[in-house]
């Protein structure tokens, strides 16, 4: 029955005070404190509120208290709803692990017709011995069977090299064989061709269209930069060829089916806006500002190509500012690293990006089938093996079983260092939920898969600076910028999300 003896708010005060849920924090230079939890939820508190929070003196009616409870970073006597929800959120954030290894990289040939000084792959010359550096039919079939043995019902078959188009016949055979063997398995397979597009022919494009293969290429920026970074093996410039062929591929396959990666060299640092403008000129929807990896030829060339993490961060911010201006002016164009970090931080969903996840992408998210039948957890692991260190060699498709390869000694070694939740320097970092672990890089640069964050390699310093920058940006963004960042996250047109004044 109606009861109009309404109780006052004070009657609903939680009893027994509150306790702290696990959280990590980072003090910002502006005095605010950034707090996050493993579900990726975060909150920015004033230093005063933060201090009250940890001393357990926040009043239950304060906005800080309510914000902390909602995430939940504190628990009070109001029931156990928070635990269930926390578990679901955390579970959702780790759901990229469902199905285990999803990205299967096939090195069908190690030969290449370009001679990029930063190449992280131990490429061979274009005319090197085909038998020695191309994938044999037996290795190909066995590798495909491994891919199809993966628990995931959706896998990506990615062709890398070398330059895969030097042996187009192998690509045709690989896709044909994959489709044939998959008939009984029934997985969804996405096909990606990573090519420098220097020898693109119409029949290649016809094949891509027919078989549903999308193209990932490399574009480092405008002509003078790209030619310097990515010369042809014969010393000729490559920019004119790659841009012409990007256009051809866009026309043949649609713009969505052609993407490009850029690698930042010391020279690139001089051209933040020019690089972006080149991507715009080529009608690309995004650019991924990638740091040079400390591997392969890049290490040998580091005196010429290298730069510090701080220099890279300054460059990144200049690129980012320029991109924001472009979006504010009404053109949708995103920076892919930012999109990944923002999706991790601002949404309840997961992101499967093998270079920035915990457990690490290596082995758990990606594996590499080399032309000679060896299986590695990543490109980097293959490089290590070729310099005589087989630590992250998983085995051979010709000799080992699926279990040997994916649950053997190298994967155990990797797993022990693959979770940033448990790594010194990461476990208490406020940006841990948005970052990742890279045991192979740690091993390569520090001789230890766990490594220390302040050691060489730059993974921590670079990521931490950029993630913090993005969090501060999102926190202080005006409505226009907020709309842009969400359009990137939701992969929408920035103009679609615009509301009337």
């Amino acid at each position: 029955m109606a009861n109009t003896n309404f109780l006052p708010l004070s009657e609903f005060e939680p009893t027994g005070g509150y306790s702290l849920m696990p959280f990590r924090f980072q003090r910002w230079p502006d005095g605010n404190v950034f707090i996050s939890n493993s579900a990726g939820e975060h909150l920015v508190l004033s230093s005063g509120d933060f201090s009250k929070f940890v001393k357990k003196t926040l009043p239950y009616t304060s906005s800080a208290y309510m914000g902390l409870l909602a995430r939940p970073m504190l628990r009070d006597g109001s029931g156990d709803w928070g635990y269930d929800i926390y578990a679901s959120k955390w579970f959702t954030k780790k759901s990229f692990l469902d199905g285990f290894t999803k990205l299967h990289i096939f090195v069908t040939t190690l030969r290449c017709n370009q001679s990029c000084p930063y190449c992280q792959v131990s490429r061979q010359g274009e005319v090197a011995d085909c038998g020695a550096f191309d994938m044999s039919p037996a290795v190909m079939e066995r590798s495909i069977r491994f891919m199809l043995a993966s628990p995931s019902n959706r896998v990506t078959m990615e062709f890398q090299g070398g330059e895969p188009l030097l042996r187009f016949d192998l690509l045709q055979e690989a896709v044909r064989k994959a489709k044939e063997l998959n008939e009984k398995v029934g997985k969804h397979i996405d096909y990606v061709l990573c090519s420098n597009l220097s020898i693109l022919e119409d029949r290649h494009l016809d094949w891509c269209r027919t078989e549903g293969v999308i193209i990932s290429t490399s574009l480092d920026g405008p002509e003078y930069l790209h030619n310097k970074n990515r010369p042809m093996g014969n010393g000729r410039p490559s920019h004119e060829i790659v841009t012409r062929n990007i256009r051809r591929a866009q026309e043949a396959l649609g713009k969505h089916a052609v993407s490009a990666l850029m690698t930042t060299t010391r020279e690139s640092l001089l051209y933040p806006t020019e690089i972006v403008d080149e991507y715009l000129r080529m009608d690309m929807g995004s650019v991924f500002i990638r740091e040079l990896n400390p591997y392969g030829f890049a290490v040998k060339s580091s005196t010429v190509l290298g730069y510090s993490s701080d220099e890279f961060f300054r460059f990144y911010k200049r690129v980012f500012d320029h991109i924001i201006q472009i979006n504010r002016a009404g053109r949708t164009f995103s920076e892919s690293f930012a999109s990944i970090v923002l999706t991790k931080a601002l949404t309840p969903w997961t992101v499967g990006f093998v270079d920035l996840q915990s457990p690490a992408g290596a082995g758990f998210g990606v594996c590499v089938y080399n032309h000679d039948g060896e299986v590695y957890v990543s490109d980097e692991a293959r490089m290590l093996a070729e310099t005589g260190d087989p630590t992250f060699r998983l085995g051979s498709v010709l000799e080992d079983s699926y279990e040997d390869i994916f649950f053997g000694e190298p994967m155990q070694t990797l797993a022990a260092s693959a979770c940033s939740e448990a790594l010194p320097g990461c476990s208490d970092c406020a940006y841990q939920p948005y970052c990742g672990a890279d045991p192979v890089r740690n091993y390569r640069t520090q001789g230890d898969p766990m490594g220390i964050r302040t050691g060489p390699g730059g993974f921590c310093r670079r990521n931490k600076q950029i993630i913090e920058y993005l969090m501060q940006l999102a926190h202080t963004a005006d409505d226009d910028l907020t709309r842009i960042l969400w359009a990137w996250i939701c992969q929408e047109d920035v103009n679609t999300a615009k509301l009337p004044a």
Partner: protein
Amino acid sequence: MEQVITLRRKVERVSGLSDRLLGRVVYVSQAADHSKDEFLLIRKSDEYVDISQPSRFGAVIVEEGAEHLVPSEVSVPIIIGLPEAERVTAGSVVVVSPNGSVVTLYRPESHSNSIFATGQCNSNCLMCSQPPVDDDIPALIKEHLRLVELIPGEPETLGITGGEPTLLGDGLIRILQTIKSRFSNTQLTMLTNGRAYANNDLVRQVAQAAPSKFVSAIPLYADNPTLHDWIVQAKGAFDQTMHGLYNAARNKLQVEIRVVLHKQTIPRLPALADFIYRTIPFASHIALMGMENMGYVKKNWDQLWIDPIDYAEELIATVRKLYYRGMNVSIYNLPLCVTPTAIRQFARQSISDYKNIYLDECHGCQLIDSCSGLFASSKERHSRGIKRQ
């Protein structure tokens, strides 16, 4: 410009009726196939009534002023003196009582039909527009099942409301099953506070019984238990509802979140949007609803009333948050003139037709065709921002 439709009527005289009785209204001109399910409605405009076997109807209802048309020999209950009979369309389902009340339960021409499950509730919200009343739930369950049987043809939409429908327990499950068996394609919306959904067994039964297009519309008034529990005047309500929402998701039941906009919900509204997105991202729809000035609202007026034009900033911020995040958000019950232009595209004509009015100021407004108008209860007290556009 009042358009309110009366659902409850009182007649002068009833005979032959010992208990409440439900039936589907049929007009004299259409009364070829008599059935006990049907109540024959005799209107003033009927010039001549030739009903050879009036006893084959469930009852006979006679409009005020049409008494002279009643056949002399009627052996079924007869309800005499119905006012405004032209508003009771053929195919409507009504319930008649020995005390002379005639209540329309279902109108075929309306999109606002709801089964009023019970007047009882386990919460006691500060802004309840329909304060709880005691009633006889077992008897109501029988009537609801009968109502579902009597509805002519498959309705596009149907609601279940209250009170709190989950208080019907097994009765609710039976009602859902009956609806599902009769109307496979009806969009069924149940307004529930979701507290009983904390019991996963109930949610599983609901999920099995409900038709395929079924949504549970569940209110959430804050991103934290203290404020929510105070607003609904029930300790532990937030805890139960949150468990309930997750049980619904677990059982693949569609949920929408409803928020009533008033002085106590506005300050945390943008924070609630964040909470919904991070914690209930599976909500298929979020309705931000202007308050209906009925029931307890009148008593708690000072504590609740905030003019919509004074919460424009919070409302814009909230709608933007949800919209940017790809959530499906609507604004209910706010006339367009008090809805900021930036978010007018989210405003819906949400007020049930039988209690929907427009004011004199609305006359000649160019937005009237797409405007929600007002609740009849807002005729006297409403936003100072209302003006012709």
